[in-house]
């Protein structure tokens, strides 16, 4: 079943994929000379001795030139998301969300989209190493087989949810009874489960039903972009907010309190910037207000009530708190309060108590067993302790890279030195590999068999699309080796487990069919965990919370010292994806910063420190210090600095090397998420920040219209100036065939940027590197313009995905001297690369500035493996030509060809663009104007529709829906609609 490896691929079937049509510098001069003779033949650069190499025997499921799709899963920190991966002639080329999978519903994250490039990463490890010298896998297998039973065997893994893995661990323990498993990730969720244990007596997982929630209060919780269920939750949340179909509709309300603006915060109706350390107090304050409002949960211990009475709200959030509490109280059973993963257990317990008080548990929040296996089991600390005690003889570190990501004060490095045998298995040789005696290259998840559970417990399967490019074993295969299986096959392991799991009852035939069906689907239907009755031991919980309140009270209010908080990067997560160029060059959702991280701080603090964006500041905390460029972020909490993880990698690839700063030194095992008492001082140096958006203010121009729900109801067609007909001298253009168009709802675009990476993957868009971005030469066809409205300390954000608008009177078309950009009868603004001579007039004349130019030969020098990812249905652009969004014309034409063959028209929803397909919230809708009833058409009937730069008369095919914020009545002033 796994398709053959690429070296066996017939090159002819993948034009442009394994050989680029463009020029390299050597060919260039030759061609310059030849071109005169080639007059008229134009850009035809064919390979004179092209060969056709058909397979010697038919490959199953494959027709040359016809893509095949397989369902699989991507696992991140233990949680699976369903993917459907497209393979072209044996090469996986594109990741999409699995529409049936409950954790995806068709959406993906930027990370999911980029995982395809991780597969082809040229820096991936290629061989087994012993003390840095090449060794054989057989040798490692022998070593493992020869391990004595009482070998003090420890494993260090990311959190795991794979049933197969659990089973294998049991088998390992049969051979090595004392074997231990420690799980660790820089984005540890133990606090969440401890909080749950405090509340419910065991680590239950909260399943949120955002589609049912009228009011959501997110306390330092970026649930739309950075939490395990984000993709699914985005879709649910958007579904609820989309009830704003007309002025009459009710979009619900999102309250957010967070230190630095996140995608979730940028979609808030009512937001306050608050230090992460004050969130606990805020939660307590909320509970206090609710109790005061007469909704005290039964059995709340009196001393807790006493402490809550008159509990001081954190100063900056007083108004926010009362308004939010009132709002929550107004919709009992239809609200959700949630806290972020990095918040301490007590905060989570408080939140559970609040939800209990509001009667949300069982309504908008269901509680299930956690998907993770043993979520509160031993972690790094226990491992280090054991190693220090000399109990660890053999340590197997798989996937994880603790020597980069673990807080330094754990002393992991010293601990490792004391362990006689350390084996590191990973995609890359990285910081940790160097400290280990053995190294084993891991197979990528697109190369291996396996399973894992989604956030809701759904059993999802991992299916390979290609044989391992560089050999290597999968995680389960590695464990099987310890279970005494010298040369295990992941497929067999999974197959056996499945058979045993279904084994009891049912004929072998049915089992076989069921297995086939599940693998095809990518997961087992209805395998999500059932809801557990929410049983809070309120007295005990209350008692446990009393001391927490004391500390919270002590904390809140105290302005100094400055807080530092650490968050996963939306692009490179905790740094494990740092070698993926797409992600490094991905503009971060709010700051638009690429290629590295920065010390983010609010305008207030920056003013007091006298630093500006780009000034390098020194962050020091009890003896440990790092230097990072400052970045002023409007809407950032005062007295706080926040730093994204994942920078400053010291190993693990050319791309990652030296990008950004490592936040590690400032993190401590005690406070990995945030801490007080960081000293910030300007160093006088400057470091240019590669930011893709020049200016976030609208300068009084009506670019991203937004208003409050109240104002919208008062004047539904407040965007009237930005739509409708305009007088024109140009003759009308008669249209033939389906008229393609796009509608984007800025009210549900969180700026998560999955679309940007999806576009890059689909359309062979190169990256240009940090210098390229500094030179304003980034190549993204689709960018997200984020406009700041309101004051700098309480701004509103409007995300506006900005792509080719496909104007019907396109300014770029009439200035192209050679007809390289033309208009198709079905309403597309076409870009014909091979006709382009590169005058760049079209870019000058494009008011949206969505055209991109190949300043250099960006595609020529790409590594062989990277070229394998290319989409053969999209021309790889050569040096000196213009390019831009095509509405994924290759997908349109593919559907058209099929419909022409079947002698019918394209069906509604048959054409899906890459950005639309990836979008977790479904903010981007594409289709034909004829197809009434599709969201794309329905949405553009809404009164809040508008065309970007309408007054220019370009008549764009891309329509936007204005951003409607729904602030609580008494704080409506915070969302003033002034635009500059």
């Amino acid at each position, binding site marked *: 079943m796994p398709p053959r490896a690429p070296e066996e691929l*017939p090159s*002819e*079937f993948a034009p*442009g994929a394994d*050989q680029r*049509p463009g020029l390299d510098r050597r060919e260039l001069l030759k061609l310059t000379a030849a071109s005169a*003779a*080639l*007059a*008229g*033949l*134009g*850009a035809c*650069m*064919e*390979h004179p001795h*092209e*060969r*056709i*190499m*058909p*397979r*010697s*025997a*038919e490959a199953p499921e494959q*027709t*040359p*030139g*016809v893509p095949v799709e397989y369902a699989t899963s991507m696992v991140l920190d233990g949680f699976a998301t369903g993917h459907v991966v497209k393979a072209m002639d044996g090469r996986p080329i594109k990741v999409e969300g699995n529409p049936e999978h409950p954790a995806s519903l068709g959406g993906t994250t930027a990370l999911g989209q980029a995982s395809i490039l991780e597969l082809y990463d040229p820096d991936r490890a290629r061989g087994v190493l012993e003390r840095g010298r090449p060794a054989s896998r057989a040798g490692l297998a022998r070593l493992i087989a020869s391990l004595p039973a009482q070998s003090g065997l420890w494993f260090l893994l990311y959190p795991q949810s794979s049933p197969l893995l659990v089973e294998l661990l049991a088998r390992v323990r049969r051979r090595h009874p004392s074997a231990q498993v420690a799980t660790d990730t820089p984005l540890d969720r133990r606090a969440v489960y401890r909080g749950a244990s405090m509340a419910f007596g065991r680590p239950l997982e909260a399943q949120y039903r955002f589609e049912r929630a009228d009011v959501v209060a997110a306390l330092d919780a970026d649930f739309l972009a950075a939490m395990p269920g984000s993709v699914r939750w985005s879709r649910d949340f958007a579904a609820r907010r989309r009830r704003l179909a007309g002025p009459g509709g009710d979009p619900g309300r999102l309250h957010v309190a967070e230190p630095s603006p996140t995608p979730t915060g940028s979609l808030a109706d009512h937001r306050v910037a608050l230090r992460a350390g004050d969130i606990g107090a805020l939660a307590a304050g909320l509970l206090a207000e609710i109790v005061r409002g007469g909704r005290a949960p039964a059995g709340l211990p009196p001393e807790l009530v006493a402490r809550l009475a008159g509990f001081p709200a954190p100063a900056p959030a007083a108004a926010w708190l009362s308004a939010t509490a009132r709002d929550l109280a107004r919709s009992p059973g239809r609200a959700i309060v949630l806290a972020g993963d990095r918040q301490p257990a007590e905060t989570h317990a408080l939140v559970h108590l609040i939800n209990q008080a509001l009667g949300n548990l069982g309504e908008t929040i269901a509680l299930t067993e956690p998907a993770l296996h043993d979520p509160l089991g031993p972690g790094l600390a226990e491992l280090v302790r054991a190693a220090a005690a000399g109990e660890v003889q053999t340590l197997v570190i798989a996937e994880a890279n603790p020597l980069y990501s673990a807080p330094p004060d754990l002393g992991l490095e010293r601990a490792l030195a004391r362990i006689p045998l350390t084996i590191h298995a990973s995609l890359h040789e990285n910081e940790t590999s160097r400290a280990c005696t053995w190294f084993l290259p891991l197979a990528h998840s697109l190369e291996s068999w396996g399973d894992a559970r989604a956030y809701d417990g759904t059993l999802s399967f991992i299916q390979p699309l290609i044989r391992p490019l560089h050999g290597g074993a999968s995680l389960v295969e590695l464990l099987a080796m310890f279970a005494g299986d010298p040369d295990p096959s992941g497929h067999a392991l999974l197959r056996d487990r499945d058979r045993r799991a279904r084994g009891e009852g049912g004929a072998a035939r049915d089992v076989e069919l069921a297995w086939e069906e599940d693998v095809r689907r990518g997961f087992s239907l209805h395998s999500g965990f059932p809801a557990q009755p929410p049983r809070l031991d309120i007295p005990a919980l209350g008692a446990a919370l009393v001391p927490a309140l004391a500390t919270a009270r002590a904390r809140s209010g105290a302005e100094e010292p400055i807080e530092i908080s650490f968050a996963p990067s939306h692009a490179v997560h905790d740094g494990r994806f740092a070698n993926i160029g797409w992600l490094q060059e991905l503009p971060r959702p709010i700051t638009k910063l690429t290629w590295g991280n920065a010390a983010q701080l609010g305008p207030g603090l920056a003013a007091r420190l006298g630093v500006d964006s780009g000034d390098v500041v020194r962050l020091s905390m009890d003896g440990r210090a790092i230097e990072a460029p400052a970045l002023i972020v409007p809407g950032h909490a005062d007295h706080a600095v926040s730093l994204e993880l994942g920078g400053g990698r010291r190993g693990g690839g050319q791309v990652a090397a030296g990008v950004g700063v490592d936040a590690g030194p400032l993190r401590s095992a005690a406070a990995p998420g945030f801490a007080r008492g960081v000293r910030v001082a300007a160093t006088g140096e400057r470091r240019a920040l590669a930011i893709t958006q020049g200016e976030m203010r609208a300068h009084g121009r009506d670019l991203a219209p937004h208003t409050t729900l109240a104002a919208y109801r008062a004047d539904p067609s407040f965007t009237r100036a930005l739509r409708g007909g305009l007088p024109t001298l140009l*003759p009308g*253009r*008669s*249209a*033939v*065939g389906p008229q393609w168009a796009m509608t984007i709802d800025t009210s549900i675009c969180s700026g998560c940027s999955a679309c940007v990476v999806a576009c890059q993957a689909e359309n062979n868009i190169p990256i240009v590197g940090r210098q390229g971005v500094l030179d304003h030469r980034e190549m993204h066809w689709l960018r997200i313009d984020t406009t700041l409205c309101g004051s700098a300390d309480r701004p509103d954000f409007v995300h506006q995905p900005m792509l080719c608008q496909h104007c019907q009177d396109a300014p770029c*078309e009439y200035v192209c001297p050679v*007809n390289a950009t*033309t*208009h*198709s*009868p*079905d309403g*597309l603004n*076409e870009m*014909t690369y*091979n*006709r382009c001579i590169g005058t760049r007039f079209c870019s000058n004349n494009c008011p949206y500035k969505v055209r991109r130019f190949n300043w250099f030969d960006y595609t020529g020098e790409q590594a062989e493996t990277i070229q394998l990812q290319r989409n053969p*249905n*999209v*021309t*790889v652009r050569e040096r000196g030509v213009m390019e831009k969004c*095509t509405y994924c*014309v*290759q997908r349109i*034409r593919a559907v*058209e*060809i099929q419909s*022409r*063959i079947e*002698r019918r028209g394209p069906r509604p929803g048959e054409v899906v663009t890459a950005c639309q397909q990836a979008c977790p919230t479904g903010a981007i809708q594409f289709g034909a104007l004829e197809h009434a009833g599709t969201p794309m058409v329905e949405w553009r009937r809404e009164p809040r529709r508008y065309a970007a730069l309408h007054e220019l008369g370009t008549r764009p095919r891309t329509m936007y829906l204005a951003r409607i914020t729904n602030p609580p009545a008494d704080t409506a002033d915070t969302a003033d609609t002034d635009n500059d």
Partner: protein
Amino acid sequence: MASLYPAWSNTAYRLALFALGLGAAGLVVGPMIYVRTPYNTAQFEPWDQPVEFDHRHHARDDGIECLYCHSSAETSATAGVPTTAVCMGCHVQVWNTSPLLEPVRRSYFSGAPIRWRRVHTLPDFVYFNHAVHVRRGIDCQRCHGDVGRMARVMQTQPLTMGWCLDCHRSPERAAGPDPATPTPPRSAWGATFDMFTRHSFADRSITGLITCSACHR
């Protein structure tokens, strides 16, 4: 003093000027003519192939359908070249000892592909789709010539953009009138002249097929 120039120099001078003008004109017209010749379009060149496969024998004498071997032409963008297994399907019985078929047997048993020389090549930025043409009733000979009469396959059509457009502007010439897309015949010049304005794209109902993104994506 002696005259600077001999008497004939005026004539020589005039001739030289004339030649100069001629040369200049040739520089412009020459390439235009050249690109339309088979030298440039690589027509009528029978290539040697690793296997001496004779289409006359298979396609004409044995009357084997094109699609029997080039099966993906109906379903895929590319017509595909048959796998060795397809060859062996017959040749395990017939000619199974012929030395001519040695490379085929070698490929079949070793699994190594036969490296055929590509005859019909389009630039990588041209997306031609076999399926839609075949399923819409264009017969293979239309573009590939009468392969059944070729000892070694050669390209008979120029396969230039203009050649594609000629058919796309008046498909009825290629495949007879198509109920789905009826269209009046028009002269190549009339059509090319329309390239001056995008509006006139629309006054032909097959416009979808001559718009740039129909072939360039």
